[in-house]
């Protein structure tokens, strides 16, 4: 299709359901951590679509809501541990935004596990694989996110 973003159709039942999860990975830590996980052959489910961003602070809540609106089943935002940020304070600002967004989304009734945040440093390949394992497992149990589908 000519337009870059499309809305993915919702056709699946829970047992064979393979969730589509967008993962915003911060270029300096989490993306490197994901690389390390791949290089060291850590197995983790293939359900995440990685979007590399300069810093977790770059993630505007609008992008997360746009991802949910476009038909993905879950969003993960992963950045450097507080203090390791390449831009010093990017993830500190992000942390406050994510704290409020997480509480707000669960307050209005979206399952807790749909939008998750994590800190993964460049050296923690194993930790990255475990987190992805956990996130994908939780979202697979929840089933497809039908709240934002075009009816």
């Amino acid at each position, binding site marked *: *299709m000519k*337009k870059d*973003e*499309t*809305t*993915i*159709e919702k056709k699946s039942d829970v047992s064979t359901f393979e969730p589509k999860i967008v993962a915003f990975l911060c270029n300096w830590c989490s993306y490197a951590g994901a690389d390390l996980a791949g290089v060291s052959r850590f197995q983790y489910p293939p359900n995440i679509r990685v979007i590399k961003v300069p810093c977790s602070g770059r993630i505007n809540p609008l992008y997360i809501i746009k991802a949910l609106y476009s*038909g993905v089943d879950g969003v993960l935002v992963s950045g450097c541990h507080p203090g390791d940020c390449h831009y010093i304070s990017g993830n500190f600002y992000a942390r406050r935004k994510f704290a409020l967004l997480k509480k707000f989304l669960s307050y209005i009734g979206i399952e807790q596990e749909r939008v998750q945040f994590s800190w993964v440093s460049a050296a923690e390949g194993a930790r990255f694989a475990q987190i992805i394992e956990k996130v994908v497992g939780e979202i697979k149990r929840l089933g497809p996110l039908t709240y934002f589908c*075009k009816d």
Partner: protein
Amino acid sequence: MVKERRGSVILDKKDFENFFSLLAEKYTIFGPSQDDNGDAFTKIDSPQSLKLHYKNTHLSLKSYFFPQTETLLTFDNHMKITKGKENETEEQTKCSILFGVRPCDATAIYFLDKVFQESSPPDPYYVKRRSVTRIISFACTDPSSTCFCTSVACGPDSEKGSDIIFFELDGHYLVKQITQEGEEILEGVKELLKPVTDKHIEEKDRSMVAARHKLRKIFEVSNFVKKLENFEAPYWEKLHQKCLGCGICTYMCPTCHCFDMTDEVTGSGGRRVRTWDSCMFPLFTLHASGHNPRPTQKERMRQRLMHKFNYAPKIFGEVFCVGCGRCVVHCPVNLDLRSVVQQIMEEQ
């Protein structure tokens, strides 16, 4: 008096039940009932759920024929149009009736017919819905304080746009058939109807005079139309100051018909969708080059008034306002159309 009698008949209130069920066999009926936003038109199965003593619906009835969101056509990934092609005719099984419409809303539909049906090329989506819907209106006996239909070319017993009009008398209804379709409806229920007598007509006229008495005539609309010829008048400067440019007055207005057309892409193709739009929004006339013929709220508010009170009379010969008062009631800053008109009339 004779001319009046030709189309009128009487229906006793006690026959109302089976009048309704007779109609319900041939037509699907929509009528006023309570929803959590005040009164709205919903599908009515039994006359008990009809709530005929209501001031007016919260939203106007234009969304029945001109819905806020409507798919014009859908296309697949290879740009081939899959729905909404030429003269597509899904057969609609039963005609439907909007029962208990207020005369001002019916008159508004009459104006929308002029825009979408009578001026060429006709709008097929509007015509498909309008041609299978009949309108039975109920004359107003108890207008609310924000109604000003008598100040514009409308009134508590305006017949424009409706097929049949009911006048409530004590004990029975005076039913007046206005259009050919109205006659067909009454044909089906002939046995319940009784001939009308002069007493009934006097009673009806008395109730209408009482209703008109409650509606203060605030301005003479024909003078207002002429007054608006002065486009660059100074009063526009201060009239718009309060306006915050939201879309409430245009979306609640029964005669506002402006719309937007945009494309949407879904996984396996997409659709072209028509949605309501408002001249009060800045993007309404923004050119791709950045030029905007109506850059500030002054021009936009002037456009809203000029379109209804000056341009529509020139194009369609009708003032596109029915005085229902919805824009007055819902404006967040209480920018009252009646006081705007009065301020303009007082200027030299």
